[in-house]
């Protein structure tokens, strides 16, 4: 599903965010991405979302080499990648329903489809009863779950999460992680950037560890049982 081939990302001449990173994630695999702050986690996610382009090497998502993707094709790639943010990026000028509906709207789904799929996604995260509320009225954990519903509403084959549990207490964090695990069980590839090592260890999944732009652990799926440092 995801493949990094000798990927290097250099911002300025003196700042190299990723150095020759190699790894490969299969369909339905759930993996964590960890490392100290500034190790390159965000850069790696940005490369996957084509917010940035690699300086060298190739980023492949679903068989498409993203380096050579023309700018106007980027939106179509993003429609196949669900993203969950630490600050969830919800819009407070519209209802929960309208927030979740955005990915469907940009691809021109019919209103009937939108209604059906948004409710299915909200049901999945347990917020069906709050579809008409403003996200501001929800708690932090609920807001995060709205963000997740939005990320999965068009059933993307790839789900990325950037510190999805950053602001949540451990109990809520475990809930959120369980949701991600469920998605991976139905074939969604999930990559979660996090430095919540306790939580990562508890999950016992493959963990990619970055250190100053180098992938120092978890590069091969054979070491699937590798747990953090």
């Amino acid at each position, binding site marked *: 599903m995801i493949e990094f081939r000798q990927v290097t990302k250099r911002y300025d001449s003196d700042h190299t965010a990723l150095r020759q990173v190699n790894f490969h994630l299969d369909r339905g695999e759930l993996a964590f991405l960890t490392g100290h702050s500034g190790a390159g986690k*965000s850069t790696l996610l940005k490369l996957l979302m084509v*917010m940035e382009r690699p300086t060298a090497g190739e980023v492949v998502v679903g068989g498409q080499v993203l380096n050579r993707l023309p700018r*106007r094709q980027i939106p179509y790639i993003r*429609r196949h990648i669900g993203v969950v*943010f630490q600050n969830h990026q919800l*819009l407070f000028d519209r209802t929960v329903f309208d927030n979740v509906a955005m990915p469907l709207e*940009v691809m*021109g789904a019919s209103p009937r489809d939108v209604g059906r799929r948004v409710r299915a996604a909200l049901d999945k995260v347990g917020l069906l009863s709050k579809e008409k509320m403003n996200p501001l009225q929800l708690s932090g954990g609920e807001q995060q779950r709205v963000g997740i519903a939005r990320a999965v509403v068009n059933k993307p084959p790839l789900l990325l999460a950037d*510190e999805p549990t950053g602001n949540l207490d451990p109990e809520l964090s475990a809930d959120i992680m369980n949701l991600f695990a469920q998605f991976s069980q139905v074939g969604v590839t999930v990559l979660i950037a996090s430095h919540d090592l306790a939580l990562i260890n508890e999950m016992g999944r493959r963990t990619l560890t970055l250190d100053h732009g180098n992938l120092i652990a978890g590069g091969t799926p054979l070491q699937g049982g590798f747990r953090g440092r």
Partner: protein
Amino acid sequence: MAVDPSRKPRKPDVARGAKTSRSPWREQAESYFIHHRKVARDSASRLWQTPVASLMTWTVMGVALALPVALLLLLTSLQGVSSGWESGARVTAYMSLDANLEQTRKLADEIGADGRVAELELIDRDRALAEFRASSGLDDALDYLEENPLPHTLLITPEESARTADGVASLLMFIESMEGVERVQVDLGWLQRLNAMTDLLARAVWALAILLAAAVVLVIGNTVRLSIESRRDEILVAKLVGGTDGFVRRPFLYTGAWFGLGGGVVAWILLQLSLWWLSGPIERLAGLYSSDFSLSGLSFDGVFALIIAAMLLGWLGAWIAVKRHLDDIEPGEIAGG
């Protein structure tokens, strides 16, 4: 391993497995139009939500549009005057000095018999001298002259059918070719002056119209830029979830067009009001000149064209703003750390 196909399969190699794009083409088109309608309605209601600000923008646009249109209307009215010039055209034929009165009478009969001539007046040289004496005040000077220096004169009013530029020209040639006619004159001086003035005015109006249209585009561009800034988050999210540039632009282009619509309507109202206000004095003035000049308002087509033009200008302004500022908003900074 295959990524889902694009819903709009632009690239053939991604258009494999049609798992999610099973909706037929018709349904796609339908939801596209539904989306357009929704965006259009949404943009309009956003303008309504800030009525004072919107009204001010509309008024600025309305004033900027009404001014050149009013001048254009004045111009067409003036051109109407000059295209009716033939009614005032009279051809004056001066006989040569050695032509006597009898000869002139014969000639006058001949010319008067021509189908193109409606009226003909003969002013003999004695009467001409008397009139000149009376009007010029050169009484004494004229007494020194041994003989009358003025020729016999024919004043010819063309028939209505001959009152075209060509008709008058051919009549002129005909009269000129007659024996004994020294010189033929058409009094068009004032008309040429008016024409020159309207030409000048036309250029000035067009220059003004272009400047004001540019101003309208800039005003709308700036207003839309502010609206882009205030909807920054929304744009970021739309780009993140795969909104195309077209999708992101659409609401702002509609906003520009709605600004244009409002501006066009305001311009039309301003024009009607000033026309109503001016029509009385203009009628009186025209009456004093015994002219049937009147200031014509905008026709239905004209109003339609004005509003369409205003919407296009608004759209253009929005497009420029969107082009300049939307590309700056890239979701790069979202994933921090």
